[in-house]
């Protein structure tokens, strides 16, 4: 009875379905419309959006609007620019979003007062967050704005942080009008939650960069002086020169410790006061001891100094700290970014007594369209800022937009997409009076809610708070190199002192001094300081070329030992998109189902249209010349009725077609043949949802709807398990589905967990009984807190943008193989670091011993010093590798899909 279509329509084998249209977009771009791709974003055009006879096709209204706006403004070159950008990076293939909002809140006097400033020329300036930036062409487009919108003086985009700075003439144009113009092009402006925090953060970052640059400059100058000093010691340099060089060296070291290095001293003092041990205490002690000894030795005109080592150490330590600071800054910034989940503006319904302005925001946002209410009173929709909402307010949410606050649904039951909040991939039906959370997207039709809590009290806001805390609380691991270098300075100071004390009575002061100097030179922390950064930089560079973006050396260190790998199902193991996995039944019934589902925005409907909609058109084209239009017409559905939670029914031609759940079929007493029933049962066991198609009261096809596994998931999981990782599944999806996926992957039942809320995921990652490190892989907003809290958070590309900011590692390519690549690379990079450290420690120890024995004089030591650094450099560049040990090329296109094969 099974009659599957040829695979190109909706086969679950994965790659070709995804890569096909994308490849077309890459090649053609502007002219891609000819072969069914959106003229704006290059994605395939769904049949429901197709307009016959139009040379330009669009995938959605947003893209159509933006395309129109661009041409109107004479900015068609955007497409040219984007083609160039595409050669550099991916990411332009995203449909544009045009909200059509009013943005009146940007004209609010309080907002203007608090967040904008006026310069001498009378230009008002503001800094706003911007959504929708994809590539370099966007920068060009936005910065061309002053030439198309009168009154806009300047637009500067900071693409790294998603910030835009706008200068405008308030007499000529309002900020809301500019924001609407941005919106028409597919970019949304959001005000910062706390502009002062942003300014503080920027100042702190600036201070770090200055500190690092100054320390680097001083260190290199100190090293240059030291070369002269040690070189001269051997060739009987006059005392005056030696003293001069020493004083210069001391001055530089004092400067290094007092200016950029002061942060270590203040941290150490704070740590001592609070009686909490801290890495900075030995560091500060070492620095002060080295500089102090240098000053004493120079004043007395005896002995030697170690000042250049101190200056160098300040620089190297600061570099390490800056990397750490950068990560904390990201943790704080992402909270701002995440606010985009929740709309910043709400459409508040105000019941106004005739003529009077109503109870809204001081009359500032009164642009909303007035409309007749159901009762006596007149209703107005007013745009208000999200935090101006109060409990009891009535808010309207347009279809496919996110809810601005937590509350209660007051209109008819509706479907909500909670995937942001819970990771549940299927939409959830909420009855009238049921709870609705901020960030949930309402599907199909507009809804109204009564606000219970808004602003910082919503579930989404509390979740964001958790993300921030988890990111900041994660104990900074003391890097191996830090541990080694913390005891380095005290050790060599002591070793030099011992050398003098030991040799002075035996060989005289001069010789003892020469040996101590040789020891200090030969044990210069150069090689030691370079060992880790070099290997890390080499490792990160090699990873980046292979699509593994690692955000720091400590990440590689943490991931280098096998521990626990926590995988999220949606988007990590699966394609994160509802699709028709398999089906059975007559082709005509399936084509009819697609025609009916074309009228629904439900994800399942989309899956059916994707799988069978295009198929129907192709059938027509193949059957008779010019018949494509005719077939489309025959398959036009009429009298469409959508029954929430059940299915959809409509007339296609003369036939009555119903598409929906088993319950729907039972309620309409459709005849279900035994073969279809058995097929549906099989679907359920495999974790798929069966969807029945009945024609005139008889079931003629069954489609299994699900989220297919990525083709490489199974093989990767088994290889990782062999390498010693414990692979755990933590999904927000239904436990039964999670169990099915685990089975398909070969993961034991006790390690498969479904139905986890974001908070539970966080607790899960922090569980004590997992072997460390805990590596969390995920991509949804619901994974964010867990990603931030895990020892290593790995985000997979195509996931939520925010997850890329939280995660320590971003995998640029789809599938799990890049993850494996990262783990292999982390291990080999860590190996390189260890080899490097061993080489430099061995070098220092051997050099120290030789110097102690008087076998190395200061000049030879000065020559040897860069040699050790060079050795380390060569080793670092050669060693780390992100190559997978062996690739099983035998894997066929669909073979890896465990679920497909049961």
């Amino acid at each position, binding site marked *: 009875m099974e009659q599957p279509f040829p695979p190109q329509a909706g086969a679950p084998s994965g790659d070709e379905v995804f890569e096909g249209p994308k490849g077309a977009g890459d090649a053609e771009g502007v002219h891609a419309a000819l072969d069914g791709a959106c003229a704006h974003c290059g994605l395939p055009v769904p049949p429901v959006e197709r307009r016959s006879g139009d040379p330009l096709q669009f995938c959605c209204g947003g893209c159509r609007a933006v395309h129109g706006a661009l041409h109107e403004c004479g900015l068609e070159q955007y497409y040219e620019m984007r083609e160039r950008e595409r050669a550099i990076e991916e990411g332009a293939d995203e449909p544009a979003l045009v909200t059509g909002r009013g943005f009146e809140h940007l004209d609010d006097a309080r907002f203007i007062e608090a967040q904008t400033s006026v310069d001498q020329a009378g230009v008002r300036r503001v800094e706003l967050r911007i959504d929708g930036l994809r590539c370099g062409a966007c920068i060009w487009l936005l910065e061309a704005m002053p030439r198309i919108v009168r009154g806009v003086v300047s637009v500067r985009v900071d693409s790294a942080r998603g910030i835009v700075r706008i200068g405008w003439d308030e007499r000529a144009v309002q900020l809301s009008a500019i924001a609407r113009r941005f919106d028409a092009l597919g970019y949304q402006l959001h005000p910062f939650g706390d502009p002062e925090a942003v300014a503080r953060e920027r100042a702190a970052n600036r201070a770090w*960069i200055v500190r690092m640059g100054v320390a680097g400059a001083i260190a290199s100058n100190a090293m240059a002086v030291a070369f002269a000093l040690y070189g001269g010691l051997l060739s009987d340099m006059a005392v005056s020169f030696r003293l001069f060089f020493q004083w210069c060296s001391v001055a530089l070291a004092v400067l290094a410790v007092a200016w950029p290095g002061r942060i270590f001293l203040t941290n150490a003092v704070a740590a001592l006061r609070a009686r909490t041990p801290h890495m900075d205490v030995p560091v500060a002690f070492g620095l002060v001891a080295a500089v102090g000894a240098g000053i004493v030795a120079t004043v007395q005109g005896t002995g030697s100094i170690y000042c250049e080592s101190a200056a160098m150490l300040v620089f190297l330590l600061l570099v390490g700290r800056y990397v750490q600071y950068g990560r904390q800054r990201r943790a704080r910034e992402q909270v701002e970014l995440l606010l985009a989940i929740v709309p910043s503006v709400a459409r508040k319904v105000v019941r106004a007594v005739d003529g009077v302005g109503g109870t809204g925001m001081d009359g500032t946002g009164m642009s909303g369209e007035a409309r007749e209410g159901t009762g006596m009173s007149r209703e107005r929709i007013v745009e208000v800022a999200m935090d101006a909402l109060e409990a009891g307010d009535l808010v309207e949410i347009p279809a496919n937009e996110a809810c601005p606050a937590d509350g209660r649904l007051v209109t008819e039951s509706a479907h909500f997409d909670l995937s942001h909040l819970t990771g549940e991939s299927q939409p959830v039906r909420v009855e009238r009076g049921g709870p609705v959370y901020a960030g949930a997207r309402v599907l199909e039709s507009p809804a109204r809610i009564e606000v219970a809590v808004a602003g910082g009290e919503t579930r989404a806001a509390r979740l964001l708070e958790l993300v921030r805390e988890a990111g900041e609380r994660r104990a900074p691991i003391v890097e191996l190199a830090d541990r080694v270098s913390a005891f380095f300075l005290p050790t060599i100071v002591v070793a030099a002192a011992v050398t003098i004390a030991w040799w002075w009575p035996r060989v005289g002061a001069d010789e003892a001094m020469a040996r101590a100097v040789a020891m200090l030179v030969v044990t210069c922390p150069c090689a030691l300081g370079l060992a880790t950064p070099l290997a890390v930089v080499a490792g990160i560079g090699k990873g980046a070329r292979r699509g593994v973006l690692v955000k720091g050396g400590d990440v590689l260190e943490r991931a280098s030992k096998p521990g626990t790998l926590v995988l999220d199902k949606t988007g990590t193991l699966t394609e994160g998109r509802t699709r028709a996995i398999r089906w059975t039944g007559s082709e005509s019934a399936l084509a009819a189902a697609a025609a009916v589902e074309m009228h629904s925005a439900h994800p399942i409907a989309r899956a059916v249209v994707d799988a069978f909609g295009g198929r129907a058109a192709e059938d027509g084209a193949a059957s008779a010349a010019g018949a494509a239009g005719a077939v489309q017409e025959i398959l036009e559905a009429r009298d469409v009725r959508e029954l929430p939670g059940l299915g959809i029914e409509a007339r296609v031609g003369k036939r009555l077609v119903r598409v929906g759940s088993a319950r729907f079929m039972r309620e309409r007493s459709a005849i279900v043949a035994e073969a279809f029933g058995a097929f549906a049962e099989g679907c359920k066991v495999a974790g798929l949802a069966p969807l029945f198609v009945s024609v005139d009261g008889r079931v003629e096809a069954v489609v299994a709807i699900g989220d297919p596994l990525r083709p490489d998931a199974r093989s990767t999981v088994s290889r990782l398990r062999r390498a010693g990782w414990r692979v755990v599944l933590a999904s927000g999806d239904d436990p039964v589905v999670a169990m099915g996926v685990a089975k398909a992957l070969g993961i034991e039942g006790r390690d498969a967990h479904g139905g986890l809320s974001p908070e539970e995921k966080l607790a899960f990652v922090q569980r004590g009984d997992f072997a460390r490190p805990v590596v969390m892989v995920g991509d949804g907003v619901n994974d964010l807190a867990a990603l931030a809290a895990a020892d290593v958070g790995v985000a997979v590309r195509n996931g939520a943008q925010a997850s890329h900011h939280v995660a320590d590692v971003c995998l640029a390519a789809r599938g799990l193989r890049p993850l494996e690549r990262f783990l292999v690379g982390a291990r080999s990079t860590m190996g390189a670091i260890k080899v490097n450290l061993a080489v430099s420690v061995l070098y220092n120890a051997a050099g120290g011993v030789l110097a102690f024995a008087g076998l190395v004089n200061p000049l030879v030591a000065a020559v040897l010093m860069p040699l050790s650094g060079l050795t380390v450099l060569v080793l670092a560049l050669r060693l780390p590798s992100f190559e997978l040990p062996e690739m099983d090329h035998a894997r066929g296109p669909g073979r890896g899909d465990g679920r497909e094969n049961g």
Partner: protein
Amino acid sequence: MELVFVALPVALLVGGAALAAFVWAARDDQFEDLDTPPRRAIFDDVEVRSGRAAEQRGKSEGKSLDTH
């Protein structure tokens, strides 16, 4: 050899000047965004061509828009 007494401070002064320039650049937020400026440079040559639309708009609105 006594030249060293002059040469070294001079070298340090030159280094100090470079350092001052760096500190100024850092305080001017030039290290804040390292991604956008390189792209902006690529777009510069295209901007001239797109002036056509701006000119048309300028004519129709009787406004001079040649300041960019």
